[in-house]
């Protein structure tokens, strides 16, 4: 194996390397979420074609496969490392305490920090359903088509409106988005700490801003399904 390959493997196998990987992949996924959120919110644009136009623009990018492959890689690495951290934690203390509680400040231990693996695994299950429903859902051939600038384009907006008629989707999605908010409540500041970017002055600021961003992302995603369900 090449020297660089060996080094990379050693990083993967080290306790700190795993943190660097969760941190980098976690933040990259947050950036992806922000882009996704922007695309979603175009639904509320005054231009009725804005949503479909944007979706069409994204999947027509020359580099779309490179981007998708990159995103998939980030997800896979994030999940493998996250699960392995959880498994190591189980091994590191097989018999727990009869009584255990957090000592309080300055601890950042919270419901959110303790349930990263649970919220993460729910997100994973959600992702599979989500991708099957939308990315691999019905398209132009199945009649979900609009004409934009004289070109036939997939009518994702209509698919969205049909899917979110079902209460299971309309309420299931927001529920998962709340769990996403929990994942990010601890996740965002944690990623910066994992990358070594924190110090005693920055930590409280980033912790607070991370919480605010987590709420904004969760709320930003959950309004669309609820809006569609209640307005149509």
């Amino acid at each position: 194996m090449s020297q660089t390959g060996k080094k990379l493997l050693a990083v993967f196998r080290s306790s700190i390397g795993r943190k660097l990987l969760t941190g980098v992949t976690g933040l990259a996924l947050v950036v992806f979420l922000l882009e996704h959120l922007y695309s979603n919110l175009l639904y509320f644009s005054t231009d009725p074609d804005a949503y479909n136009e944007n979706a069409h623009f994204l999947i027509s990018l020359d580099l779309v496969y490179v981007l998708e492959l990159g995103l998939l890689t980030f997800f896979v690495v994030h999940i493998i490392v996250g699960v392995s951290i959880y498994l190591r934690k189980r091994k590191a203390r097989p018999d727990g305490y009869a009584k255990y509680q957090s000592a309080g400040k300055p601890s950042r231990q919270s419901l959110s920090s303790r349930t990263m693996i649970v919220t993460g695994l729910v997100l994973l299950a959600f992702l599979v359903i989500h991708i099957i429903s939308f990315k691999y859902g019905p398209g132009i051939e199945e009649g979900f088509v609009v004409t934009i600038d004289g070109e036939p384009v997939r009518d994702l907006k209509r698919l969205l409106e049909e899917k979110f008629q079902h209460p299971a989707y309309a309420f299931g999605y927001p529920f998962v988005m709340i769990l996403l908010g929990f994942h990010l409540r601890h996740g965002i500041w944690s990623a910066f700490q994992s990358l070594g970017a924190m110090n005693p002055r920055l930590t409280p600021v980033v912790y607070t801003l991370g919480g605010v961003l987590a709420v904004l992302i969760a709320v930003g995603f959950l309004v669309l399904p609820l809006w569609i369900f209640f307005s149509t």
Partner: protein
Amino acid sequence: MTVHLRIWRQAGPDSPGRLAEYTVEDVNEHMSFLELLDVLNEKLITEGEEPIEFDNDCREGICGSCGLMVGGVAHGPQPRTAICQLHMRHFNDGDTIVVEPWRATAFPIIKDLVVDRSAFDRIMAAGGYVSVKTGGAPDANALPVTKEDADLAMDYASCIGCGACVAACPNSSASLFTASKIAHLAMLPQGTPERRRRVLNMVDQMEAEGFGDCSNHAECEAVCPKGISISAIALMRREYVRAVLSS
């Protein structure tokens, strides 16, 4: 005052353990928690029972020998205090207090409340030192250190190696201990020449001992009797990246 204790009793490393119940009356509020255990042990001895084994030495919060989970918190409810320095006045008459040993695969129980913390010694041996050639003492001002760096180095150096960070961590990670040692030496010119191999070797050893990974719960900082900040852990990660990139 009277306190009820539920204390972990375990005859040996491989024996099964259980929480045993004891009641101690006439507790003086000026006793330390370890003195409470002394009083209980005297009673047990006169009654012909096996006394409760627990680690301690200086009883003034500086050696790092003592360490108990008291009421579910490492070193008990008082922040920045080793359990030998926690006084009974911080409890109430009639309290029931659960007392357990540090629990971690890397800290196997020897007996009752005593655990084997030699994993920490092996992490230290992997690089928590500076190699100094003995000889004439260098001139005091030959190695300038800024006041800020000296203060920070002192903060990190105040780690007494008690293991509370591991005990309180939901993941049983030894990150705060290892990071304190690395950060302390990284702040000083004497630590600079070996910084690369220090961080790589100590982190490897931490892993080999079977401690968990850090999930940034920061519980360690909250229970550390010296209040060492998790910014040590951030610094350790920066040292690690620098070491990997520079090799």
